């Protein structure tokens, strides 16, 4: 009990205090200087709007670019795009990474192409996909997949390669087949790298979906945010940011929980 208290005082209290100070400062500055609500809403006003939008529940948009009545549907659309993109990007990255880890030639020929694709800012590619696939879920999922697949690729190559040479020798000395070495040694060894990549990719997928939506869409949080920002309905834009951040934090937490379960045997989990 005592140690729990200490953990709270040491770990949770300082950020909590800093956060509260930040919010109070923000509220104070907005009120003190009389900053108009369309420019920078106070936290209190933003929270009020957020609750109004949340309590409206699942409402269809009235017309394109119309004022948002509920935020649930937009959040659902963005979440779908990000998750579909994350899954597609991860699978592609893992597959290519496995191929590259097994063949030097594949690595040397695929890596430059992938690196050039990666070096292109996503905002330059997103409009192309909007033109190709329209304004639905598909182009955003593609953009999210492109943003996520590179970290997955790099992590899977490193994971597949960085096996303990002694363990590999042991496997070979008991005449393990290549397939056995792959499933029993390389794949488990890749898992920690996989989860590191996945945690990184959660926020990348959300940003990818957002970029796609901002470039061209009829619904989703990105659409809602840009539509409200240009109408100077800034409190609603802020609500979108809060909901998006909440989705990001939740997804990251889910990945972390799954990781702790799956990797309970690994030293990185045991230490902490």
């Amino acid at each position: 009990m005592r140690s729990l208290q200490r953990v709270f005082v040491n770990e949770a209290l300082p950020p909590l205090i800093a956060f509260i100070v930040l919010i109070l400062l923000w509220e104070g500055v907005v009120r003190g200087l009389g900053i108009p609500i369309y420019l920078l809403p106070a936290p209190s006003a933003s929270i009020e709007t957020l609750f109004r939008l949340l309590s409206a529940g699942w409402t269809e948009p009235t017309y394109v670019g119309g004022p948002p009545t509920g935020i649930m549907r937009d959040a659902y659309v963005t979440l779908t795009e990000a998750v579909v993109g994350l899954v597609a990007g991860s699978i592609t990255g893992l597959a290519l990474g496995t191929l590259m880890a097994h063949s030097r030639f594949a690595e040397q020929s695929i890596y430059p192409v992938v690196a050039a694709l990666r070096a292109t800012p996503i905002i330059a590619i997103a409009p192309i996909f909007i033109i190709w696939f329209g304004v639905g879920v598909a182009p955003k999922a593609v953009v999210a997949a492109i943003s996520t697949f590179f970290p997955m690729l790099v992590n899977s190559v490193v994971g597949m390669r960085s096996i303990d040479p002694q363990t590999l020798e042991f496997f070979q000395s008991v005449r393990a087949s290549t397939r056995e070495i792959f499933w029993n040694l390389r794949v488990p060894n890749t898992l920690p790298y996989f989860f590191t990549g996945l945690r990184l990719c959660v926020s990348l997928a959300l940003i990818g979906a957002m970029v796609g939506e901002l470039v061209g869409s009829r619904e989703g949080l990105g659409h809602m945010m840009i539509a409200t920002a240009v109408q100077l309905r800034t409190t609603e834009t802020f609500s979108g940011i809060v909901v998006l951040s909440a989705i990001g934090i939740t997804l990251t937490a889910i990945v972390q929980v799954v990781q702790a379960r799956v990797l309970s045997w690994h030293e990185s989990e045991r230490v902490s």
Partner: protein
Amino acid sequence: MTVREAAIETRPDLVDAGIAVRRLTRRDVLIGLVNRFWPGVFGFAVFFGVWEGVVRITDTPAFIIPTPSFVLAAFFPRLPGLLAELVYTLAAASIGLVIGLAIGIIGAVLMVHWRILERGLFPIAVLIKLVPFVALAPLLIVWIGYDLKPKIFLAALITYFPVLVNMITGLRSVDEQALEFFRTVGSSRWEILWRLRWQASLPYLMACLKVVGHLAIVGATVGEYFGSKNGIGMVIARTSEMLQIQGLFSAALLMALLGSALVILTNTWERRVVYWHESVRTSGGRG
């Protein structure tokens, strides 16, 4: 590039094996270069060949998917105009990058020296980082205007976090014994910071520089996309609105070339600056 440098670049195995680099003939170097680069050339050839072939066979109209040859033909006439816009983008990106680096480095130095600052401020830095920066782009236009400022802000916002995280790790990654030695000879905190911690953090700084240069350009381009009179981001926005797919692909191609050049540049630079660090020696400095 001298023969010796080229030899180190292309045949590190020989250098490691202790075979005198000077004895390598030009022919060895040439073979080394071919061995090193032909898989990459092959990869690009397959990529563009498949693209060109698929578009031609399916007879897709050029305004939907142009062939690489078509894009290339449209690229060169547009290049002078694009480069003029690129100057604007790079100006915003570099100013933002400098600000992001300054915030990240100063923040890391403060957080490493005062734990209470790290406990209090680092979670807030994480929170700010979690806010998707693209969501701020339309708001920034409202807040700070239509000119260079929101682009600089975005570039700084997107770059400070990797710098902060890497510098905290780097400044901490000092050799315990060296630290003890500095303390026994009565070095001040300032001396330890400058002569020990800063040196230890250089590989980490280089590692994040490889990422943040690209990020700064992304930030500036996104800022331009949502409202600007100049810049590559503006070109992307205009051409995609008007379905000028050649212009759009030309801009994307320029950004791809720029990004690739940046990667090659930072990798080479890293090998020069932190050549003594094991991460460079073992991995060949690939990020």
